[in-house]
């Protein structure tokens, strides 16, 4: 759900693009389909959430913020999202470079891997990581085969266990914008840097990275915002003791039977996400890339 929202963001932002003055009046009806889409898929559910959050006896928002498990999960979620963002942007940029400049077979392999992981359900990939991380899972099997370890690994369902899987799941969203930017990069600038005496470090730092900086930031913001609301992967790999915000919300709805508190927490998550996006937009002009 969160993934769909994040991917739909460019489509809903696009309707604010300014039009040529003369044609504006005739083309105004073109605004209606996206507007209806926005009302049905974004505004509608938010209104329903607000109504749900206000339906309880007390102040569901204040109650949420007093809950220690919830506040803990907020910090855990923010830390997870931040680390995953930095890791995916760094790895993703290297990945994009390799696709852009590597020989054909490297390109095919890396691009294929990227697309297959995008097309495969998050659930399936999470279970894959589970099988890897279980105390006697694939990781243990390999280490045992190499005589590096004989006792089962106590890694599954810990905070750290969420990280590799989250990075793997989010990687394509960091790679794709950077890749588009790297492919569009004018290679003659590399020649210019070489000819004018720049070594590899100066070329990377002063010529290449500034050119793809915007794409790295957009990829990072996309990953960060998506990570904030991610559900399946943190829940299965982190376990009940390390729940992120979405896990806690699910608990309120399905276990504690407090729909109003769950709705209030959801609104806090959505509001916080939007606030973070707006701050990022102010700082880095992210939305300029959406046109």
């Amino acid at each position, binding site marked *: 759900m969160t993934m769909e929202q994040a991917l739909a963001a460019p489509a809903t932002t696009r309707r604010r693009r300014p039009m040529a003055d003369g044609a504006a009046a005739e083309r105004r009806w073109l605004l209606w389909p996206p507007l209806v889409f926005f009302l049905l898929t974004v505004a509608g559910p938010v209104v329903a959430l607000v109504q749900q959050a206000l339906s309880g006896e007390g102040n569901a928002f204040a109650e949420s913020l007093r809950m220690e498990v919830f506040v803990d999960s907020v910090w855990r979620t923010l830390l997870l999202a931040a680390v995953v963002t930095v890791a995916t942007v760094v790895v993703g940029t290297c990945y994009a470079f390799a696709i852009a400049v590597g020989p054909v077979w490297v390109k095919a392999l890396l691009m294929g891997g990227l697309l297959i992981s995008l097309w495969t359900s998050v659930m399936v990939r999470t279970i894959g990581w589970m099988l890897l991380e279980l105390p006697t899972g694939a990781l243990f099997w390999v280490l045992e085969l190499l005589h590096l370890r004989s006792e089962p690994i106590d890694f599954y369902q810990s905070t750290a266990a969420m990280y590799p899987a989250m990075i793997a799941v989010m990687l394509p969203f960091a790679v794709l914008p950077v890749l588009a930017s790297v492919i569009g990069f004018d290679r003659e600038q590399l020649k*210019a840097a070489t*000819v*004018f005496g720049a070594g590899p470090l100066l070329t990377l730092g002063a010529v290449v990275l500034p050119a793809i900086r915007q794409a790295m930031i957009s990829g990072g913001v996309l990953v960060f915002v998506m990570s904030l609301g991610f559900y399946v992967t943190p829940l299965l790999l982190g376990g009940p003791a390390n729940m992120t915000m979405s896990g806690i919300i699910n608990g309120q709805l399905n276990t504690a039977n407090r729909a109003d508190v769950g709705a209030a927490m959801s609104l806090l998550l959505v509001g916080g996400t939007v606030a973070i996006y707006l701050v990022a937009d102010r700082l880095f002009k992210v939305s300029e890339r959406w046109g």
Partner: protein
Amino acid sequence: MSIALSIKDVHVTLGQFEVLRGVSLDAEPGTFVTLLGASGSGKTTLLNVIAGLQQLDSGHVLFDGANVERRPPRKRRVGVVFQSYALFPHMSVGENVAFPLRAARRPAAERRRVVQEMLDLVDLGGMIDRAPASLSGGQRQRVALARALASDPAILLLDEPMAALDKQLRERMQVEIKRIQQQVGITTVAVTHDQAEAMTMSDLVAIMHEGQLVQVDSPENLYRRPVDEYVASFLGEANLFPADRHGPLPVDSGAPATGTAVVRPEDLVVLDAGQLGDRWHVRGVVRLLSFQGSRFRLEVTTPAGRSVVCSLPPHTDAGALLPGSEVTLGCADPDRVHVIHPAAVGEQLKLAA
């Protein structure tokens, strides 16, 4: 400080295709050399060879007598103006020009001084803080030129420098680049497919054809004394007639020819019957007469279907040259007819080898 450039028997193969097939070239310090040729003739590859951006199969590149073919580009002290200019878009004009100095870790004070000096040289002194994107095409080219000259290079390389400019600006910049090149006194190699540009800017023009240098000479010698038919028709318009040792043979006579006479359109005149005598001449029918301002351009077809182009002064009586009328053309000055002897070309090649 400029250098003497020497290229000796350079071969380059890209994939299956031999792009350079034994290229040799010598240029004195301070010379402006233009590589002129159709696209695919290998001229950009040769420029990359000089810059060090292209590996050689064999041959040598010498700067002032020292072999540089194994030296990486950044140690060759070359300044390059790229075809797309390749300015760094996120840097200001001043930062772009300072880049070679920054790469060489020169102190900040020197950088500032050189940047100002270079921008003054290209008449962009007030643009130091502007972004390249806010400049016009001609201004961007000047920035690229200033950056290329900033590190006091030994040789300046220009890759199709005018390709992105419109015609008027192109002509202004040709003169401008020539002025700056002479002021700095730097050895320069430019690549172009525009013959007018090559002739305007260069001391030496090297005609490239299919990976080889066909002729390297001053613009005037290339025009007056081309070594073969390719050069003759590549540089300006040329009428080619069969010839023997003594000059052009009677046209359409079928007499055995040992060479080719090159007659430039402006060297042909319209002859009256009385002027004929035993002079060499061409008879034909006027196909087209067009007024081009400073000249008339006359196209004549001979009975055997050969097309002859003639350029006449603007005071010519156009009434006598209507399409369809018969006309006789002759040479204004027989000394200006250049005869290409294939045997002589062979000898020249032998001498060069």
